[in-house]
């Protein structure tokens, strides 16, 4: 950990807390989460220990954003979340204009209590505005539950609504419903994800029908005045998710909890995804890294490009040159520029088509950056 203190860290960071419990798993999800709640209490105790450990390493740091994700944070006892926030306030300095987001499943009672935690941003996982689709992927709420939750949340917080395109039982009609929900509720922020289904290790299988639906949904939301500031994220009136922007701009943040990851200066780490290991190691006052690396220039460059290209603003080429002075996007991407990539005002960014084929374009971009470094 000596390398951590020697690494250059900005004064403001984001804090991510992972709550890896769900009363029931949704069929499409590949995030780390458990349905056995017997260790919830122990898990939170471990989490508090981790908060403490980090605060010792970063004593004067300001926390600008907090993001509680999962899993289903709305499935665990409220008191545990309450205590967690208390610890954070005790251990870190919190910025005055901090952003505090929590992910919830549509659940009115739970959301009602969030205002007492100073939550100011609520991300509701609707996924689809159709009860049949929700049932099919084993979501535990109805569209009606969502409407009530939304009304409750918007009284005290900015609200994001999550959608997924490509779920089973979906139809053109259900997507129309999704569009209608956005149109009538006008949430501050919308995320529209295209479900990733991998037919084989290498091929993404998306049908033309799904492509068309995704396209229509995205275009409709843009027409309503939303800014597609990231591949899957749309904001009204600059209500960007400040926490997520830290990820995409490759700024500093720490992740707490199983499978959570962080980036501090040149350090990149990911915690163990194993619940038992996480709990037992922290009992012994030890971090539980599954991956820990001090990025070299190349790795840092790759990560910065990889995350930055997700944003419509793109990545600042100057910032990239600070990492690797020889970086020349004109030469490296000469045949991709125009169709998939563009350079505007010193920023390298994806075109509309680049957004659509981002998985392929990013794979190629990263590959070229690696090859550049070995001088090929």
């Amino acid at each position, binding site marked *: 950990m000596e390398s951590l203190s020697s690494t250059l860290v900005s004064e403001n960071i984001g804090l991510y807390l992972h709550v890896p419990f769900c009363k029931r798993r949704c069929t499409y999800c590949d995030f780390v989460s458990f349905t056995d709640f017997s260790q919830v209490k122990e898990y939170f105790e471990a989490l508090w220990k981790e908060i403490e450990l980090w605060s010792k390493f970063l004593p004067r740091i300001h926390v600008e954003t907090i993001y509680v994700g999962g899993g289903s944070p709305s499935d665990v006892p409220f008191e545990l979340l309450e205590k967690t926030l208390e610890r954070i306030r005790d251990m870190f300095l919190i910025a005055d204009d901090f952003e505090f987001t929590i992910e919830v499943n549509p659940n009115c009672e739970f959301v009602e209590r969030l205002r007492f935690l100073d939550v100011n941003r609520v991300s509701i996982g609707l996924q689809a505005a159709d009860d049949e689709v929700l049932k099919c992927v084993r979501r535990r709420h109805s569209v009606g539950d969502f409407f009530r939750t939304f009304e409750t949340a918007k009284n005290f917080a900015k609200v994001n609504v999550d959608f997924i395109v490509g779920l089973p039982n979906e139809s053109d009609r259900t997507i129309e419903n999704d569009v209608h929900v956005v149109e009538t509720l006008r949430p501050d922020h919308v995320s529209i994800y295209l479900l*990733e289904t991998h037919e084989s290790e290498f091929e993404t299988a998306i049908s033309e029908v799904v492509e068309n639906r995704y396209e229509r949904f995205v275009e409709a939301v843009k027409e309503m005045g939303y800014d597609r500031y990231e591949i*899957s994220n749309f904001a009204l009136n600059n209500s960007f998710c400040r926490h997520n922007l830290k990820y995409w701009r490759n700024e500093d943040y720490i992740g707490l909890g199983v499978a959570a*990851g962080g980036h501090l200066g040149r350090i990149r780490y990911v915690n163990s995804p194993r619940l038992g290991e996480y709990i037992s190691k922290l009992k012994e006052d030890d971090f539980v890294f599954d991956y820990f690396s001090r990025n070299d220039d190349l790795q840092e460059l790759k990560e910065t490009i990889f995350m930055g290209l997700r944003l419509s603003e793109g990545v600042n080429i100057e910032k990239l040159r600070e990492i690797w002075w020889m970086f020349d996007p004109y030469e490296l991407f000469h045949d991709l520029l125009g169709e998939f990539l563009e350079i505007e005002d010193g920023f390298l960014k994806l075109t509309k088509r680049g957004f659509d084929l981002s998985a*392929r374009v990013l794979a190629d971009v990263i590959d070229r950056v690696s090859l550049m470094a070995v001088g090929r």
Partner: protein
Amino acid sequence: MKDTRFIRNICTIAHIDHGKTTFVDRILEITKSVDPRKMHEQFLDQMDLERERGITIKAQPVKVIYNHDGQDYEINIIDTPGHVDFSYEVSRSMAACEGAVLIVDASQGIEAQTVAHSYLAIENELDIVPVLNKIDLPTANIEESLQQVADLLGVPKEDVLKMSAKTGEGVENVLRAIIEQVRPPQGDPNKPLKALIFDAKYDKYRGVIVYVRIFDGVLKKKDQILIMSTNQRYEVEEVGIFTPTMVPTDSLGPGEVGYVIAGIKEVSEAKVGDTITNALAPTDEPLAGYRDVKPMVYASVFPGLPEYYEELKKSLEKLKLNDWALTFEPTTSPALGFGFRCGFLGLLHMDVVRERLEREFEMSVIMTAPNVEYKVLLRNGETIIVNDPAKFPEEDQIEKVYEPYVRLSIITPTDYMGNILTHLQNERRATLQHMENAGKNRIIMYFKAPLAEIITDFFGKLKAMSRGYASMDYEMLGFEESEIVKLTVLVNKEPVDALSTLVHKSKAYTVAKKLVDKLAELIPRHQFEIPIQAKASGRIIARADIKALRKDVLAKCYGGDVTRKMKLLEKQKEGKKKLREIGQVSIPQEAFLAILKIGEEEK
């Protein structure tokens, strides 16, 4: 030396499942030739595979002693294979005998193969003992079947015996008939040795065990022998008889059936039909009828995983020790890697080899669709033989192409005749040559047809068209000029050699259409449109397009995800072609496999 008057050598002729093996089992029981404790059902089918499939592939001889009117007779029974692929082996088994027991299932009646083999027996001048089996079955149609057999052989109905090999009823009558109706063998012990090889098996401890029938002379231990077609000399280590377990004897004399062990390393050195003589006092003339049988059907075999190539090679080499008809040579495919181009006698043989590889050698293998061998006369006057579409010469070098034809015989209830006839004429390029009645409401049809049309799924199709009632047999006629074209598949304008197939001109359009459609279904969409074209005789004759993929969005990516997602992408790029190589299309192995198999349904 045995008195040949008290020897009878017979073979059995029957369609698959008509009860040949059960019949032999019953004889073993009646003559007490096998210890009842060791007797398990179908004693003669030794290989697991044969037992499981209930069919006999390899002939296994047996000697029994039967007392008839106070005199012990030695009866050698050679159990013949019952499938078209092995008809040459059948003919050689017959050459080792003086008589044949023709077994017909009373509930099924005669089948195409029975007819073909009966004619073969008549040609070989065998004394035929006709027997109706399974008379105990409720479905037995005794009168009708008796008439069919009588018609086939031109004998009175009364001469056809009736038995149930299962219950044992009538089996002794058959034994008596064998002794009374089949002539004893002849031969001179003082003449130079002439022994016919009618089968051979490889034994890992003793080398090749050669099954022989002695015609003239005597064969004994320490003899120097000569195999006449190869001119190879060996020293006899052991001779013996089958009881049916192998029992060594001092010598084998004229008329006798037995085995020879002489340090022969693989069965291809002692091919069926060849003659063994004494190296020191050789005969001038080998026995008639030896042919070097060549494979008729070719397919490529690849290991399930590339790293098992060496193991596959060893397995094939081991199989070859025991399978004289199998040929193989190394080949490569861009999609499947290193493998072997194998030659088989026919489809069953191919299936048997595949199953034996999987069972005996625990190899999982990928086998491509089979095809036949073509003779190509080039413009420069040279004639080449091609069995691999990838090696077919360019059209402008070709003067003429010849393809193998067969005489196909089909026996079917008349109800299905129309459909079969239409199918063969319209879709299999066959011409009807002759037909005649084969009993009440049954007909036998003779066609001339290209072998290529028969080796694909025809047998299955025939069974489907006739609800399982029709049966078939075929024999080679030779090569005939034909309009064969090479169908080349172009993916994104680039020819893909491994997808080439050879088809008759008349079918080029239909096959081409199916090929491109199937490929369009199997190749994943890329970020650009991909035309799939099929080309024959210099022209594009079919096309299908794979639409461009418009969305491949890397959806969610958060803090803990960065490394994982980047690794995922880096892994994907190995499989996916990079945008830089925008013109290239990655074709998954599944697509190759499906296409290689398309011939099985479509050709």
